[in-house]
Protein backbone atom coordinates (compact mmCIF):
# COMPACT_ATOMS: atom_id res chain seq x y z
CA UNK A 1 0.00 0.00 0.00
CA UNK A 2 1.33 3.42 -0.94
CA UNK A 3 0.33 6.94 0.02
CA UNK A 4 -1.41 7.25 -3.33
CA UNK A 5 -3.74 4.42 -2.36
CA UNK A 6 -5.07 6.31 0.63
CA UNK A 7 -5.23 9.84 -0.76
CA UNK A 8 -8.90 9.47 -1.85
CA UNK A 9 -9.72 8.23 1.64
CA UNK A 10 -7.98 11.17 3.29
CA UNK A 11 -9.76 13.62 0.98
CA UNK A 12 -13.23 12.23 1.55
CA UNK A 13 -12.80 11.94 5.31
CA UNK A 14 -11.42 15.48 5.44
CA UNK A 15 -14.39 16.80 3.47
CA UNK A 16 -16.88 14.99 5.68
CA UNK A 17 -15.12 16.33 8.77
CA UNK A 18 -16.34 19.83 7.85
CA UNK A 19 -20.01 18.82 7.91
CA UNK A 20 -20.62 19.80 11.57
CA UNK A 21 -19.40 23.31 10.73
CA UNK A 22 -22.32 23.76 8.35
CA UNK A 23 -25.01 21.74 10.01
CA UNK A 24 -25.51 22.26 13.68
CA UNK A 25 -29.06 21.02 14.13
CA UNK A 26 -29.11 18.15 16.59
CA UNK A 27 -31.50 16.10 14.49
CA UNK A 28 -29.16 16.25 11.50
CA UNK A 29 -26.13 15.41 13.62
CA UNK A 30 -28.03 12.52 15.14
CA UNK A 31 -28.77 11.27 11.68
CA UNK A 32 -25.13 11.63 10.59
CA UNK A 33 -23.77 9.79 13.62
CA UNK A 34 -26.30 7.01 13.21
CA UNK A 35 -25.44 6.67 9.52
CA UNK A 36 -21.74 6.46 10.32
CA UNK A 37 -22.40 3.75 12.91
CA UNK A 38 -24.31 1.79 10.28
CA UNK A 39 -21.49 2.38 7.79
CA UNK A 40 -18.95 1.02 10.28
CA UNK A 41 -21.14 -2.02 10.98
CA UNK A 42 -21.39 -2.64 7.25
CA UNK A 43 -17.65 -2.16 6.73
CA UNK A 44 -17.12 -5.08 9.08
CA UNK A 45 -19.55 -7.25 7.14
CA UNK A 46 -17.94 -6.22 3.85
CA UNK A 47 -14.54 -7.55 4.92
CA UNK A 48 -15.91 -11.02 5.50
CA UNK A 49 -18.62 -11.22 2.86
CA UNK A 50 -17.54 -8.69 0.25
CA UNK A 51 -13.90 -9.72 0.11
CA UNK A 52 -14.10 -13.25 1.50
CA UNK A 53 -17.43 -14.36 0.04
CA UNK A 54 -18.63 -15.70 3.40
CA UNK A 55 -22.14 -14.30 3.69
CA UNK A 56 -23.01 -13.77 7.31
CA UNK A 57 -26.60 -13.17 8.23
CA UNK A 58 -25.78 -12.65 11.88
CA UNK A 59 -23.48 -9.69 12.23
CA UNK A 60 -25.70 -8.66 15.13
CA UNK A 61 -23.63 -11.20 17.10
CA UNK A 62 -20.65 -8.85 16.83
CA UNK A 63 -22.53 -5.56 17.04
CA UNK A 64 -24.34 -6.73 20.16
CA UNK A 65 -21.21 -8.08 21.79
CA UNK A 66 -19.52 -4.72 21.32
CA UNK A 67 -22.55 -2.81 22.60
CA UNK A 68 -23.04 -4.98 25.66
CA UNK A 69 -19.32 -5.13 26.45
CA UNK A 70 -19.05 -1.34 26.31
CA UNK A 71 -22.11 -0.89 28.50
CA UNK A 72 -21.61 -3.67 31.03
CA UNK A 73 -17.91 -3.14 31.60
CA UNK A 74 -18.49 0.43 32.71
CA UNK A 75 -21.83 -0.02 34.47
CA UNK A 76 -21.12 -3.29 36.26
CA UNK A 77 -17.35 -3.24 36.66
CA UNK A 78 -16.60 0.48 36.67
CA UNK A 79 -14.12 0.23 33.84
CA UNK A 80 -13.30 3.44 31.95
CA UNK A 81 -15.50 3.66 28.81
CA UNK A 82 -12.53 4.24 26.50
CA UNK A 83 -10.94 1.06 27.80
CA UNK A 84 -14.32 -0.68 27.60
CA UNK A 85 -14.49 0.39 23.95
CA UNK A 86 -11.20 -1.33 23.16
CA UNK A 87 -12.18 -4.46 25.09
CA UNK A 88 -15.55 -4.44 23.31
CA UNK A 89 -13.88 -4.48 19.89
CA UNK A 90 -11.56 -7.25 21.07
CA UNK A 91 -14.55 -9.22 22.35
CA UNK A 92 -16.10 -8.91 18.88
CA UNK A 93 -12.90 -10.25 17.37
CA UNK A 94 -13.00 -13.18 19.77
CA UNK A 95 -16.64 -13.99 19.03
CA UNK A 96 -15.78 -13.76 15.34
CA UNK A 97 -12.91 -16.18 15.73
CA UNK A 98 -15.04 -18.66 17.71
CA UNK A 99 -17.95 -18.60 15.23
CA UNK A 100 -15.44 -18.88 12.39
CA UNK A 101 -13.55 -21.72 13.98
CA UNK A 102 -16.71 -23.72 14.66
CA UNK A 103 -18.24 -23.21 11.23
CA UNK A 104 -15.23 -23.08 8.91
CA UNK A 105 -13.59 -26.05 10.61
CA UNK A 106 -16.62 -28.13 9.80
CA UNK A 107 -16.58 -26.88 6.22
CA UNK A 108 -19.75 -24.78 6.39
CA UNK A 109 -20.25 -22.39 3.50
CA UNK A 110 -22.91 -20.61 1.53
CA UNK A 111 -26.38 -20.60 3.00
CA UNK A 112 -25.35 -23.03 5.77
CA UNK A 113 -22.80 -20.56 7.04
CA UNK A 114 -25.38 -17.75 6.79
CA UNK A 115 -27.87 -19.75 8.84
CA UNK A 116 -25.31 -20.65 11.50
CA UNK A 117 -24.33 -17.01 11.98
CA UNK A 118 -28.01 -16.09 12.22
CA UNK A 119 -28.46 -18.80 14.85
CA UNK A 120 -25.49 -17.52 16.89
CA UNK A 121 -26.90 -14.01 16.90
CA UNK A 122 -30.34 -15.25 17.92
CA UNK A 123 -28.93 -17.38 20.75
CA UNK A 124 -26.99 -14.39 22.04
CA UNK A 125 -30.10 -12.22 21.79
CA UNK A 126 -32.14 -14.70 23.81
CA UNK A 127 -29.39 -15.10 26.41
CA UNK A 128 -28.91 -11.34 26.77
CA UNK A 129 -32.65 -10.93 27.11
CA UNK A 130 -32.82 -13.50 29.91
CA UNK A 131 -29.66 -13.09 31.98
CA UNK A 132 -29.70 -10.81 35.02
CA UNK A 133 -26.11 -9.66 34.45
CA UNK A 134 -27.18 -8.04 31.17
CA UNK A 135 -30.19 -6.43 32.77
CA UNK A 136 -32.61 -8.84 31.12
CA UNK A 137 -35.40 -7.42 29.03
CA UNK A 138 -35.02 -4.03 30.72
CA UNK A 139 -31.56 -3.60 29.21
CA UNK A 140 -28.65 -1.54 30.53
CA UNK A 141 -28.66 2.18 31.01
CA UNK A 142 -25.30 3.97 30.99
CA UNK A 143 -25.28 6.81 33.52
CA UNK A 144 -25.20 10.26 31.97
CA UNK A 145 -21.90 11.81 33.02
CA UNK A 146 -20.72 14.21 30.34
CA UNK A 147 -16.94 14.32 30.46
CA UNK A 148 -14.56 13.60 27.57
CA UNK A 149 -12.52 11.15 29.67
CA UNK A 150 -15.86 9.39 30.15
CA UNK A 151 -16.47 9.10 26.38
CA UNK A 152 -19.42 11.47 26.70
CA UNK A 153 -19.46 14.88 25.07
CA UNK A 154 -21.33 18.14 25.32
CA UNK A 155 -21.51 18.46 21.53
CA UNK A 156 -22.72 15.84 19.12
CA UNK A 157 -20.08 17.01 16.67
CA UNK A 158 -17.35 15.47 18.84
CA UNK A 159 -19.08 12.15 18.54
CA UNK A 160 -19.47 12.62 14.83
CA UNK A 161 -15.71 13.13 14.47
CA UNK A 162 -14.93 10.03 16.49
CA UNK A 163 -17.30 7.92 14.40
CA UNK A 164 -15.83 9.44 11.24
CA UNK A 165 -12.28 8.69 12.40
CA UNK A 166 -13.22 5.05 12.95
CA UNK A 167 -14.90 4.79 9.55
CA UNK A 168 -11.79 6.40 8.04
CA UNK A 169 -9.51 3.95 9.84
CA UNK A 170 -11.49 1.02 8.48
CA UNK A 171 -11.43 2.56 4.98
CA UNK A 172 -7.63 2.46 5.25
CA UNK A 173 -7.73 -1.07 6.66
CA UNK A 174 -9.92 -2.20 3.77
CA UNK A 175 -7.62 -0.53 1.26
CA UNK A 176 -4.72 -2.37 2.86
CA UNK A 177 -6.63 -5.63 2.47
CA UNK A 178 -7.12 -4.83 -1.21
CA UNK A 179 -3.40 -4.31 -1.67
CA UNK A 180 -1.99 -7.10 0.46
CA UNK A 181 -1.25 -10.78 0.17
CA UNK A 182 -3.91 -11.47 2.78
CA UNK A 183 -6.46 -9.70 0.61
CA UNK A 184 -5.40 -11.49 -2.56
CA UNK A 185 -5.79 -14.80 -0.79
CA UNK A 186 -9.11 -13.77 0.73
CA UNK A 187 -10.51 -12.84 -2.67
CA UNK A 188 -9.13 -16.09 -4.08
CA UNK A 189 -11.10 -17.98 -1.41
CA UNK A 190 -14.21 -16.07 -2.43
CA UNK A 191 -13.72 -16.83 -6.11
CA UNK A 192 -12.73 -20.50 -5.92
CA UNK A 193 -11.72 -22.24 -2.74
CA UNK A 194 -10.28 -25.39 -4.33
CA UNK A 195 -8.08 -23.39 -6.67
CA UNK A 196 -6.90 -21.25 -3.76
CA UNK A 197 -5.87 -24.34 -1.80
CA UNK A 198 -3.99 -25.74 -4.75
CA UNK A 199 -1.99 -22.51 -4.87
CA UNK A 200 -0.92 -22.87 -1.26
CA UNK A 201 -3.54 -20.69 0.40
CA UNK A 202 -4.35 -21.80 3.94
CA UNK A 203 -8.04 -21.17 3.42
CA UNK A 204 -9.03 -21.82 7.03
CA UNK A 205 -6.48 -19.32 8.33
CA UNK A 206 -7.50 -16.70 5.79
CA UNK A 207 -11.21 -17.06 6.57
CA UNK A 208 -10.53 -16.94 10.30
CA UNK A 209 -8.47 -13.79 9.82
CA UNK A 210 -11.32 -12.20 7.90
CA UNK A 211 -14.07 -13.07 10.37
CA UNK A 212 -11.90 -11.92 13.29
CA UNK A 213 -11.26 -8.52 11.70
CA UNK A 214 -14.87 -8.33 10.63
CA UNK A 215 -16.07 -9.08 14.16
CA UNK A 216 -13.79 -6.43 15.65
CA UNK A 217 -14.97 -3.71 13.25
CA UNK A 218 -18.67 -4.43 13.68
CA UNK A 219 -18.25 -4.71 17.44
CA UNK A 220 -16.58 -1.29 17.45
CA UNK A 221 -19.75 0.03 15.81
CA UNK A 222 -21.77 -1.60 18.57
CA UNK A 223 -19.59 0.06 21.24
CA UNK A 224 -20.16 3.43 19.58
CA UNK A 225 -23.88 2.84 19.48
CA UNK A 226 -24.03 2.06 23.20
CA UNK A 227 -21.85 5.04 24.01
CA UNK A 228 -23.90 7.41 21.90
CA UNK A 229 -27.38 6.37 22.95
CA UNK A 230 -26.31 5.35 26.46
CA UNK A 231 -28.73 2.46 26.38
CA UNK A 232 -28.60 -1.14 25.19
CA UNK A 233 -31.13 -3.94 25.19
CA UNK A 234 -31.17 -7.35 23.54
CA UNK A 235 -33.40 -6.41 20.63
CA UNK A 236 -31.29 -3.41 19.75
CA UNK A 237 -27.89 -5.00 20.27
CA UNK A 238 -28.49 -8.50 18.95
CA UNK A 239 -31.57 -7.77 16.84
CA UNK A 240 -31.92 -8.90 13.23
CA UNK A 241 -32.33 -5.28 12.16
CA UNK A 242 -28.60 -4.60 12.49
CA UNK A 243 -27.65 -7.80 10.64
CA UNK A 244 -29.85 -6.57 7.80
CA UNK A 245 -28.34 -3.07 7.87
CA UNK A 246 -24.86 -4.63 7.70
CA UNK A 247 -25.80 -6.47 4.51
CA UNK A 248 -27.90 -3.82 2.77
CA UNK A 249 -25.40 -0.96 2.80
CA UNK A 250 -22.59 -2.82 0.98
CA UNK A 251 -25.01 -4.38 -1.51
CA UNK A 252 -26.44 -0.98 -2.39
CA UNK A 253 -23.09 0.81 -2.27
CA UNK A 254 -20.85 -1.77 -3.89
CA UNK A 255 -19.98 -5.11 -2.36
CA UNK A 256 -16.30 -5.95 -1.96
CA UNK A 257 -15.22 -2.35 -2.53
CA UNK A 258 -13.53 0.02 -0.11
CA UNK A 259 -16.16 2.76 -0.20
CA UNK A 260 -19.22 0.59 -0.86
CA UNK A 261 -20.46 0.30 2.74
CA UNK A 262 -20.14 4.04 3.40
CA UNK A 263 -21.79 5.02 0.12
CA UNK A 264 -24.57 2.50 0.65
CA UNK A 265 -25.25 3.58 4.24
CA UNK A 266 -25.44 7.24 3.21
CA UNK A 267 -27.66 6.47 0.21
CA UNK A 268 -30.06 4.23 2.11
CA UNK A 269 -30.42 6.37 5.20
CA UNK A 270 -30.25 9.64 3.31
CA UNK A 271 -33.09 8.57 1.06
CA UNK A 272 -34.95 7.09 4.05
CA UNK A 273 -34.77 10.42 5.90
CA UNK A 274 -35.81 12.43 2.87
CA UNK A 275 -38.88 10.26 2.28
CA UNK A 276 -39.76 10.46 5.94
CA UNK A 277 -39.65 14.26 5.70
CA UNK A 278 -41.56 14.32 2.43
CA UNK A 279 -44.17 11.72 3.27
CA UNK A 280 -44.76 12.86 6.81
CA UNK A 281 -45.32 10.24 9.42
CA UNK A 282 -46.53 7.25 7.44
CA UNK A 283 -45.14 4.45 9.58
CA UNK A 284 -42.64 2.20 7.83
CA UNK A 285 -42.20 4.47 4.81
CA UNK A 286 -38.40 4.41 5.20
CA UNK A 287 -38.48 0.61 5.23
CA UNK A 288 -40.39 0.64 1.97
CA UNK A 289 -37.70 2.86 0.51
CA UNK A 290 -35.05 0.40 1.76
CA UNK A 291 -36.85 -2.47 0.13
CA UNK A 292 -37.36 -0.73 -3.18
CA UNK A 293 -33.77 0.46 -3.29
CA UNK A 294 -32.56 -3.06 -2.63
CA UNK A 295 -34.68 -4.50 -5.41
CA UNK A 296 -33.46 -1.80 -7.78
CA UNK A 297 -29.85 -2.40 -6.76
CA UNK A 298 -30.03 -6.16 -7.20
CA UNK A 299 -31.87 -5.92 -10.50
CA UNK A 300 -30.05 -3.05 -12.20
CA UNK A 301 -26.79 -2.47 -10.38
CA UNK A 302 -25.39 -5.77 -9.12
CA UNK A 303 -22.13 -4.00 -8.35
CA UNK A 304 -23.91 -1.29 -6.39
CA UNK A 305 -23.78 2.46 -6.80
CA UNK A 306 -20.00 2.42 -7.19
CA UNK A 307 -20.25 -0.19 -9.93
CA UNK A 308 -22.81 1.96 -11.69
CA UNK A 309 -20.56 5.03 -11.49
CA UNK A 310 -17.65 3.03 -12.88
CA UNK A 311 -19.78 1.93 -15.80
CA UNK A 312 -20.72 5.52 -16.58
CA UNK A 313 -17.16 6.72 -16.32
CA UNK A 314 -15.89 4.13 -18.77
CA UNK A 315 -18.84 3.58 -21.08
CA UNK A 316 -16.81 2.35 -24.06
CA UNK A 317 -15.11 -0.46 -22.15
CA UNK A 318 -13.99 -2.85 -24.88
CA UNK A 319 -14.86 -6.43 -24.15
CA UNK A 320 -12.87 -9.57 -24.69
CA UNK A 321 -10.63 -10.23 -27.62
CA UNK A 322 -10.83 -6.94 -29.51
CA UNK A 323 -8.99 -5.02 -26.82
CA UNK A 324 -5.47 -6.14 -27.56
CA UNK A 325 -5.93 -7.06 -31.16
Amino acid at each position, binding site marked *: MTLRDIIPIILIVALLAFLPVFVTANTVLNFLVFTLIIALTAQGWNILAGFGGQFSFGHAAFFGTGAYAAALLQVRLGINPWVAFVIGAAAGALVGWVIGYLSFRSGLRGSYFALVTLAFAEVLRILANAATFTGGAAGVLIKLDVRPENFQFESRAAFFWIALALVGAVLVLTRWIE*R*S*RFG*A*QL*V*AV*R*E*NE*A*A*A*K*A*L*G*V*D*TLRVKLGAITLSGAVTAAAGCLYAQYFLYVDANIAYGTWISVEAILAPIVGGIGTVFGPLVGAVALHGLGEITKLAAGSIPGIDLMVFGSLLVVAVAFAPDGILGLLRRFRRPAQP*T*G*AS*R*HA
Partner: protein
Amino acid sequence: MLEVQNATKRFGGLIAVNQASLKAAAGSITGLIGPNGAGKTTLFTLISGFERPTEGRVLFEGQDISRDEPHIRAQRGIARTFQIVQPFAGLSVVENIAVGAHLRHARRSDAMARAQEVGRRVGLGPELDKSASSLTVAGRKRLELARALATEPKLLLLDEVLAGLNPSEIRDIIPVIRAIRDEGVTILMIEHVMQAVMNLCEQVYVLAQGKIIAEGPPAEVCDDPTVIEAYLGAGAAERLKREKVHA
Protein backbone atom coordinates in the same frame (compact mmCIF):
# COMPACT_ATOMS: atom_id res chain seq x y z
CA MET B 1 11.39 -36.78 -5.96
CA LEU B 2 7.89 -38.28 -5.90
CA GLU B 3 6.96 -41.79 -4.98
CA VAL B 4 3.45 -43.22 -4.69
CA GLN B 5 3.40 -46.53 -2.83
CA ASN B 6 0.47 -48.91 -3.23
CA ALA B 7 -2.08 -46.12 -3.15
CA THR B 8 -5.73 -47.13 -3.03
CA LYS B 9 -8.71 -44.79 -3.07
CA ARG B 10 -12.24 -46.00 -2.51
CA PHE B 11 -15.34 -43.89 -3.02
CA GLY B 12 -17.95 -45.99 -1.22
CA GLY B 13 -18.02 -49.23 -3.18
CA LEU B 14 -16.07 -47.87 -6.14
CA ILE B 15 -12.31 -48.42 -6.17
CA ALA B 16 -11.01 -45.48 -8.22
CA VAL B 17 -7.33 -46.17 -7.59
CA ASN B 18 -6.20 -49.69 -6.78
CA GLN B 19 -2.76 -50.41 -5.30
CA ALA B 20 -1.09 -47.97 -7.66
CA SER B 21 2.63 -47.28 -7.37
CA LEU B 22 4.69 -44.87 -9.38
CA LYS B 23 7.86 -42.82 -9.22
CA ALA B 24 8.83 -39.55 -10.81
CA ALA B 25 12.57 -38.90 -10.89
CA ALA B 26 13.82 -35.38 -10.18
CA GLY B 27 14.11 -33.32 -13.35
CA SER B 28 12.14 -35.73 -15.51
CA ILE B 29 8.86 -35.59 -17.36
CA THR B 30 6.73 -38.59 -16.50
CA GLY B 31 3.48 -39.37 -18.27
CA LEU B 32 0.33 -40.89 -16.84
CA ILE B 33 -2.03 -42.22 -19.48
CA GLY B 34 -5.07 -44.45 -19.50
CA PRO B 35 -8.68 -44.57 -20.67
CA ASN B 36 -11.33 -42.22 -19.30
CA GLY B 37 -12.41 -43.10 -15.80
CA ALA B 38 -9.21 -45.03 -15.14
CA GLY B 39 -8.50 -43.05 -11.96
CA LYS B 40 -5.78 -40.71 -13.22
CA THR B 41 -7.26 -37.53 -11.83
CA THR B 42 -8.05 -39.30 -8.57
CA LEU B 43 -4.40 -40.31 -8.29
CA PHE B 44 -3.50 -36.63 -8.73
CA THR B 45 -5.85 -35.64 -5.94
CA LEU B 46 -4.02 -38.11 -3.69
CA ILE B 47 -0.67 -36.58 -4.59
CA SER B 48 -1.85 -32.98 -4.23
CA GLY B 49 -3.76 -33.65 -1.01
CA PHE B 50 -7.35 -32.95 -2.05
CA GLU B 51 -8.18 -36.55 -1.11
CA ARG B 52 -6.41 -38.88 1.26
CA PRO B 53 -5.52 -42.40 0.20
CA THR B 54 -7.64 -45.17 1.73
CA GLU B 55 -4.45 -47.21 1.79
CA GLY B 56 -0.86 -46.61 0.78
CA ARG B 57 1.45 -43.62 0.99
CA VAL B 58 2.69 -40.65 -0.97
CA LEU B 59 6.36 -39.73 -0.49
CA PHE B 60 7.79 -36.40 -1.60
CA GLU B 61 11.52 -35.85 -1.31
CA GLY B 62 11.63 -38.89 0.93
CA GLN B 63 8.98 -37.67 3.38
CA ASP B 64 5.54 -39.15 3.87
CA ILE B 65 3.09 -36.40 2.94
CA SER B 66 -0.03 -38.58 2.74
CA ARG B 67 -1.75 -36.70 5.58
CA ASP B 68 -0.70 -33.14 4.70
CA GLU B 69 -3.31 -30.57 3.71
CA PRO B 70 -3.22 -29.34 0.08
CA HIS B 71 -1.78 -25.94 0.98
CA ILE B 72 1.04 -27.57 2.95
CA ARG B 73 1.90 -29.69 -0.06
CA ALA B 74 1.87 -26.57 -2.23
CA GLN B 75 4.28 -24.93 0.21
CA ARG B 76 6.51 -27.99 0.01
CA GLY B 77 6.61 -27.48 -3.75
CA ILE B 78 3.81 -29.48 -5.33
CA ALA B 79 1.57 -27.60 -7.75
CA ARG B 80 -1.34 -29.00 -9.71
CA THR B 81 -3.59 -27.86 -12.51
CA PHE B 82 -7.24 -28.83 -12.71
CA GLN B 83 -8.57 -30.88 -15.60
CA ILE B 84 -11.81 -28.94 -15.25
CA VAL B 85 -10.34 -25.46 -15.17
CA GLN B 86 -10.94 -23.48 -11.98
CA PRO B 87 -10.22 -19.82 -12.72
CA PHE B 88 -10.90 -17.03 -10.25
CA ALA B 89 -13.57 -15.79 -12.61
CA GLY B 90 -14.03 -12.35 -11.09
CA LEU B 91 -10.34 -11.47 -11.31
CA SER B 92 -8.10 -10.46 -14.16
CA VAL B 93 -5.64 -12.92 -15.65
CA VAL B 94 -2.64 -11.35 -13.95
CA GLU B 95 -4.45 -11.25 -10.60
CA ASN B 96 -5.21 -14.95 -11.00
CA ILE B 97 -1.55 -15.72 -11.49
CA ALA B 98 -0.53 -13.39 -8.66
CA VAL B 99 -2.42 -15.55 -6.16
CA GLY B 100 0.03 -18.32 -7.04
CA ALA B 101 2.99 -15.95 -6.96
CA HIS B 102 2.03 -14.79 -3.46
CA LEU B 103 3.01 -18.22 -2.14
CA ARG B 104 6.66 -17.20 -2.37
CA HIS B 105 6.31 -13.40 -2.52
CA ALA B 106 4.68 -11.57 0.35
CA ARG B 107 4.63 -8.11 -1.26
CA ARG B 108 1.90 -7.31 -3.72
CA SER B 109 4.25 -5.54 -6.13
CA ASP B 110 6.66 -8.50 -6.18
CA ALA B 111 3.84 -10.98 -6.72
CA MET B 112 2.35 -8.91 -9.54
CA ALA B 113 5.73 -8.54 -11.25
CA ARG B 114 6.33 -12.27 -10.98
CA ALA B 115 2.81 -12.97 -12.27
CA GLN B 116 3.39 -10.85 -15.37
CA GLU B 117 6.64 -12.65 -16.04
CA VAL B 118 5.04 -16.09 -15.72
CA GLY B 119 1.99 -15.02 -17.73
CA ARG B 120 4.12 -13.84 -20.65
CA ARG B 121 6.11 -17.01 -20.50
CA VAL B 122 3.09 -19.25 -21.10
CA GLY B 123 1.85 -16.96 -23.86
CA LEU B 124 -0.75 -14.97 -21.92
CA GLY B 125 1.10 -11.68 -22.38
CA PRO B 126 -1.63 -9.93 -24.39
CA GLU B 127 -4.34 -11.24 -22.06
CA LEU B 128 -2.90 -10.21 -18.70
CA ASP B 129 -5.37 -7.41 -17.95
CA LYS B 130 -8.46 -9.13 -19.30
CA SER B 131 -10.97 -10.81 -17.07
CA ALA B 132 -10.18 -14.49 -16.59
CA SER B 133 -13.75 -15.32 -17.57
CA SER B 134 -13.21 -13.82 -21.01
CA LEU B 135 -10.49 -16.33 -21.92
CA THR B 136 -10.94 -19.06 -24.52
CA VAL B 137 -10.47 -22.73 -23.63
CA ALA B 138 -6.85 -22.57 -24.69
CA GLY B 139 -6.37 -19.42 -22.65
CA ARG B 140 -7.87 -21.02 -19.57
CA LYS B 141 -5.58 -24.01 -19.88
CA ARG B 142 -2.63 -21.65 -20.10
CA LEU B 143 -3.91 -19.83 -17.06
CA GLU B 144 -4.03 -23.09 -15.09
CA LEU B 145 -0.44 -23.71 -16.08
CA ALA B 146 0.64 -20.15 -15.28
CA ARG B 147 -0.92 -20.11 -11.82
CA ALA B 148 0.67 -23.42 -10.88
CA LEU B 149 4.01 -22.30 -12.26
CA ALA B 150 3.83 -19.03 -10.32
CA THR B 151 4.03 -20.99 -7.06
CA GLU B 152 7.59 -21.90 -8.12
CA PRO B 153 7.02 -25.63 -7.66
CA LYS B 154 9.51 -28.46 -7.58
CA LEU B 155 6.90 -30.87 -8.85
CA LEU B 156 4.26 -29.85 -11.37
CA LEU B 157 1.17 -32.02 -11.85
CA LEU B 158 -0.48 -31.32 -15.19
CA ASP B 159 -3.95 -32.78 -15.69
CA GLU B 160 -4.76 -32.79 -19.41
CA VAL B 161 -3.54 -29.26 -20.08
CA LEU B 162 -3.59 -29.99 -23.81
CA ALA B 163 -7.14 -31.31 -23.98
CA GLY B 164 -9.40 -29.10 -26.06
CA LEU B 165 -6.51 -27.34 -27.81
CA ASN B 166 -6.07 -27.41 -31.58
CA PRO B 167 -2.89 -28.84 -33.12
CA SER B 168 -1.21 -25.47 -33.56
CA GLU B 169 -1.94 -24.51 -29.95
CA ILE B 170 -0.48 -27.85 -28.86
CA ARG B 171 2.62 -27.20 -30.93
CA ASP B 172 2.99 -23.84 -29.19
CA ILE B 173 2.75 -25.17 -25.67
CA ILE B 174 4.98 -28.26 -25.92
CA PRO B 175 8.21 -26.23 -25.93
CA VAL B 176 6.92 -24.25 -22.94
CA ILE B 177 6.49 -27.45 -20.96
CA ARG B 178 9.91 -28.68 -21.98
CA ALA B 179 11.48 -25.38 -20.97
CA ILE B 180 9.88 -25.64 -17.54
CA ARG B 181 11.45 -29.07 -17.11
CA ASP B 182 14.81 -27.73 -18.32
CA GLU B 183 14.76 -25.28 -15.45
CA GLY B 184 14.69 -28.19 -13.05
CA VAL B 185 10.99 -28.61 -12.38
CA THR B 186 9.89 -32.24 -12.24
CA ILE B 187 6.72 -32.84 -14.22
CA LEU B 188 4.08 -35.51 -13.95
CA MET B 189 1.48 -35.15 -16.67
CA ILE B 190 -1.82 -36.80 -17.46
CA GLU B 191 -2.26 -36.60 -21.20
CA HIS B 192 -4.35 -38.08 -23.96
CA VAL B 193 -2.54 -36.36 -26.79
CA MET B 194 -0.09 -39.12 -27.71
CA GLN B 195 2.01 -36.83 -29.87
CA ALA B 196 2.81 -34.82 -26.73
CA VAL B 197 3.44 -37.89 -24.61
CA MET B 198 5.84 -39.32 -27.18
CA ASN B 199 7.52 -35.96 -27.53
CA LEU B 200 7.95 -35.02 -23.91
CA CYS B 201 7.91 -38.01 -21.56
CA GLU B 202 10.86 -40.12 -20.62
CA GLN B 203 8.77 -42.56 -18.66
CA VAL B 204 5.09 -43.41 -18.94
CA TYR B 205 2.70 -45.16 -16.59
CA VAL B 206 -0.54 -46.64 -17.83
CA LEU B 207 -3.52 -46.71 -15.51
CA ALA B 208 -6.59 -48.81 -16.29
CA GLN B 209 -9.46 -49.42 -13.89
CA GLY B 210 -7.38 -48.01 -11.07
CA LYS B 211 -4.38 -50.26 -11.62
CA ILE B 212 -1.00 -49.51 -13.11
CA ILE B 213 -0.87 -52.04 -15.95
CA ALA B 214 2.33 -50.96 -17.68
CA GLU B 215 5.30 -48.66 -17.36
CA GLY B 216 8.32 -47.79 -19.45
CA PRO B 217 9.48 -45.48 -22.22
CA PRO B 218 6.52 -44.24 -24.29
CA ALA B 219 7.36 -46.11 -27.48
CA GLU B 220 7.57 -49.43 -25.64
CA VAL B 221 4.44 -48.87 -23.64
CA CYS B 222 2.38 -48.10 -26.73
CA ASP B 223 3.32 -51.42 -28.29
CA ASP B 224 2.41 -53.33 -25.14
CA PRO B 225 -0.57 -55.62 -25.90
CA THR B 226 -2.03 -55.13 -22.39
CA VAL B 227 -2.10 -51.39 -22.99
CA ILE B 228 -3.74 -51.69 -26.39
CA GLU B 229 -6.40 -53.95 -24.93
CA ALA B 230 -7.03 -51.56 -22.05
CA TYR B 231 -7.85 -48.85 -24.57
CA LEU B 232 -9.54 -50.85 -27.29
CA GLY B 233 -11.03 -53.86 -25.46
CA ALA B 234 -10.10 -57.53 -25.09
CA GLY B 235 -8.66 -59.17 -28.20
CA ALA B 236 -7.79 -55.87 -29.83
CA ALA B 237 -4.05 -56.47 -29.78
CA GLU B 238 -4.50 -59.79 -31.50
CA ARG B 239 -6.76 -58.23 -34.15
CA LEU B 240 -4.32 -55.39 -34.82
CA LYS B 241 -1.45 -57.81 -35.30
CA ARG B 242 -3.47 -59.88 -37.75
CA GLU B 243 -4.45 -56.76 -39.69
CA LYS B 244 -0.80 -55.73 -39.90
CA VAL B 245 0.16 -59.14 -41.29
CA HIS B 246 -2.59 -58.97 -43.90
CA ALA B 247 -1.70 -55.46 -44.95
